[in-house]
């Protein structure tokens, strides 16, 4: 269609271009005394006023969700029902977040930088902490996915120890823990013996006989993914699920992630571009329920969601914090992955249209999923919509079997005979599902995760790992095996027989004793 179809007639729909900072006002807008040191969203602040500015935004995003009844009156003391876990990646924003948490809620009584402690009547000073027990600071080492990348665990440990706070506990994790049954047991997960070896062959659940180390399993899993986009998203998803299950095992009520306003906007657009619009609210604010009796409902809070990346950098710089840094390959790698493309796009727009970043976050905060759902995706453990497979096959026909109702008689493809189309619409029934592996992973997945595992690139695979044996079965993260196991056993308790076509070999097995040999 022509480019003027959707005119931006509303004044507020026009994106304002960057207004150059005029340079006239040099006095801090807050104290109106000091000469400004930084410009934040068109306003000048001095160094003294910068810290409370950021800390106020941090608290506004975090504190309304601390008490069990969310958004309650803030006069009440802050009291969480469980413990706290902080996700630390070593990047700019999570480093600033750890510092803000330490200074706001875990500051030793006689800390010299009194300015950051909050008021005298601040609940922190009422002796007991906001959260129960020690705060876990959790780091997920991702070098297993990127051969040649440095292991940063000890650097991060040093960052945590630099706070010499007896209430902080370092919790190092590794990406390959997702495939390690020792880790899964340590977080209270259980698996039946058969589920231990559950893997996938395409999208069928199979029992794998091949034993492999967690690291090998991780690499096989990642190299089985069809696109760079899927590879990078899968790594981020593993990090997220490792943090969730670890938090639940510590009876945590809150998991804090260092997502800045800038990265929130990137995540929102990137998620929408990968088909996870149904979960758009989860990117900003989310509550996750562990398996029954394995922890309490966990709130995932991003207390820097209203603070830009630039402010985080300034915070780190002025507080002289050591930035270990995130592995370069995780973010600047995968140039052709949707995540990196979105990042480049949003960063690029930010310089010309600085309002974009906050507009994206503000717009998405006004959205809600269209219909309720009680389904949870086995892979990402976020809410999943019903009917996505029907939607997919209606909109992109990948076999005549999928559209068998529309292709008969006069409405069949004109170049095919009645007999040919009949064979085509029938034959694929034999393939899905097979008698050996009657269970499919598909119904357990949300739209985005199904797309992640199946949607191909026209360029072919370009992940950083050598392609694994694509014909073999692919290990699954342990939480997926546990969910699949539950689904299978729920299914087998039902007396409804599965409509599975019997193979000739199977028929033979059943009737073998009745068959007489030719001899």
């Amino acid at each position, binding site marked *: *269609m*022509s*480019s*003027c*179809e*959707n*005119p*931006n*007639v509303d*004044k*507020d*729909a026009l*994106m304002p271009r960057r207004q150059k900072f005029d340079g006239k006002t040099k006095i801090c807008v807050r104290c109106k005394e000091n000469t400004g040191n930084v410009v934040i969203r068109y306003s000048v602040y001095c160094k003294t006023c910068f810290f409370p500015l950021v800390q106020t935004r941090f608290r506004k995003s975090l504190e309304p969700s601390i008490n069990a009844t969310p958004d309650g009156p803030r006069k009440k003391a802050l009291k969480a029902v469980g413990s706290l876990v902080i996700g630390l990646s070593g990047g700019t924003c999570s480093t600033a977040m750890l510092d803000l948490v330490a200074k706001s809620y875990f500051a030793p009584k006689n800390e010299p930088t009194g300015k950051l402690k909050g008021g005298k009547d601040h609940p922190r000073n009422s002796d007991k902490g906001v959260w129960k027990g020690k705060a876990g600071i959790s780091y997920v080492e991702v070098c297993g996915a990127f051969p040649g990348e440095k292991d940063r665990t000890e650097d991060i440990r040093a960052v945590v120890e630099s706070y010499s706070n007896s209430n902080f506990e370092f919790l190092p994790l590794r990406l390959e823990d997702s495939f390690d049954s020792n880790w899964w047991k340590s977080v209270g997960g259980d698996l039946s013996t058969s589920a231990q070896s559950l893997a996938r062959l395409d999208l069928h659940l199979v029992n794998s006989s091949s034993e492999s180390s967690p690291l090998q399993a991780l690499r096989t899993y990642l190299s089985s993914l069809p*696109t760079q*986009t899927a590879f990078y998203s899968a790594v981020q998803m593993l990090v997220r699920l490792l943090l969730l299950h670890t938090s639940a095992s510590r009876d945590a009520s809150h998991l804090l992630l260092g997502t800045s306003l800038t990265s929130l906007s990137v995540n*929102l*657009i990137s*998620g*929408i*571009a990968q*088909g*996870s*619009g149904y979960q*758009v609210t989860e990117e900003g604010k989310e509550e996750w329920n562990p398996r029954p009796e394995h922890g309490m409902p966990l709130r995932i809070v991003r207390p820097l969601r209203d603070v830009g990346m630039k402010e985080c950098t300034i915070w780190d710089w002025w507080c002289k914090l050591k930035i270990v840094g995130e592995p370069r390959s995780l973010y600047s790698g995968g140039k052709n992955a*949707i995540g990196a*493309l*979105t990042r480049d*796009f949003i960063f*690029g*727009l930010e310089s010309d249209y600085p309002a*974009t970043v906050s*507009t994206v976050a*503000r*717009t998405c905060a*006004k*959205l*809600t999923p*269209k219909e309720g759902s009680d389904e949870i995706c086995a892979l990402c453990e976020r809410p999943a919509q019903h009917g996505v497979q029907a*939607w997919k096959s*209606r*909109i*992109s*026909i990948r*076999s*005549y079997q999928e*559209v068998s109702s*529309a*292709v008969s008689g006069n*409405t069949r*493809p*004109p*170049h095919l005979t009645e007999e*040919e189309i009949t064979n*085509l619409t029938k034959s694929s029934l034999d393939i899905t599902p097979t008698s050996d592996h009657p269970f499919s992973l598909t119904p357990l997945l949300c*739209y*985005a995760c199904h797309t992640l595992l199946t*949607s*191909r*690139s*026209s360029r072919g695979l370009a992940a950083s790992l050598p392609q694994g044996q694509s014909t073999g079965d692919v290990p699954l993260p342990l939480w997926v095996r546990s969910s699949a196991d539950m689904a299978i056993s729920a299914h087998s308790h039902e007396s409804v027989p599965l409509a599975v076509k019997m193979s000739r070999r199977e028929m033979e097995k059943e009737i073998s004793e009745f068959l007489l040999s030719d001899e």
Partner: protein
Amino acid sequence: MAPRSCALCLKAKSMLKRPKTGQQICRDCFFYVFETEVHNTIIHSKLFNPGDRVAIGASGGKDSTVLAYVMKTLNERYQYGLELFLLSIDEGITGYRDDSLETVKRNQEQYDMPLKILSYGELYGWTMDAIVSQVGRKNNCTFCGVFRRQALDRGAAMLNVDHIVTGHNADDIAETVLMNIMRGDIARLGRCTSICTQGEDTIRRSKPFKYAYEKEIVMYAYFKKLDYFSTECIYSPDAYRGHARAFLKDLEAARPSAIIDIIHSGEAFEIKEEIKATQKVQQTCQRCGYMSSNPLCKACTLLEGLERGMANSGITDRGRRKLDAEGPTPDNLRTIPFFRRPSGGYPAIAVELPS
């Protein structure tokens, strides 16, 4: 590489790689799945009733040319029982519309469909050329977009049709989803993925190509040898939209399903109830009877600005207040004819029949 056989019929030699799925298929299967997906869209959304009079918004560009062909094909194959019309808007841009209107006239004969061409000059008394000479090239897309939307509805009312179908494709819709999020246009975001829109006073409007990839529309036209013209407006497009379009192309290159995935996302969410409540209610324009969120619709406001020689004042609210401050609307002002919805029966005007 040796030619493979078609992934769908397993019989013919594969001739193309389908942009939407990456499958290698033959030409006949491509036609068939492309058409069947449009059919699925139509049937699943219950777009039409037998006997409906449906106008195809025809610009002579690729989308509407292929749409007219596919609508005719499906109407016959599945016996929808529709009466199809072609409806074209002539914006009055010298050297831009002439060729594409020729295409539409040829389609009228090939497809045996009645055609109505409605011009901005006829409806508003202003051609786009005349508007651009007044407002310059900065805001002309605002005029063009507002005027076209109304013009299609008015043309449809003249043809007395129940329904307008437009050639908006999946790329357009995905791009609009992204644009509306980035611009914070929450009202449009809420409705841009719905396949069919109908206000109380407007004619049903739908997009049967909602899930059709632009590349496949071009491919379809190419293999069916349908000719069309580029309808990219020669007056400047919107730079911000240009960024969004380039981004979408990158996403599609990274993972072709991205276009459909964005639409799926857009369909999965809606505006929170408490936000909906704060949005403006629809009313009808007191001057021309067209739907509007203000007492005066956008087209009437823009037209009044043009007529009073203060063309740019119709674009913003501030401009509008300035216009009001200049004094009341003169009585002898040229206005748009009053809008009436078709109420069944015969066409309000005679249409040109194919010769």
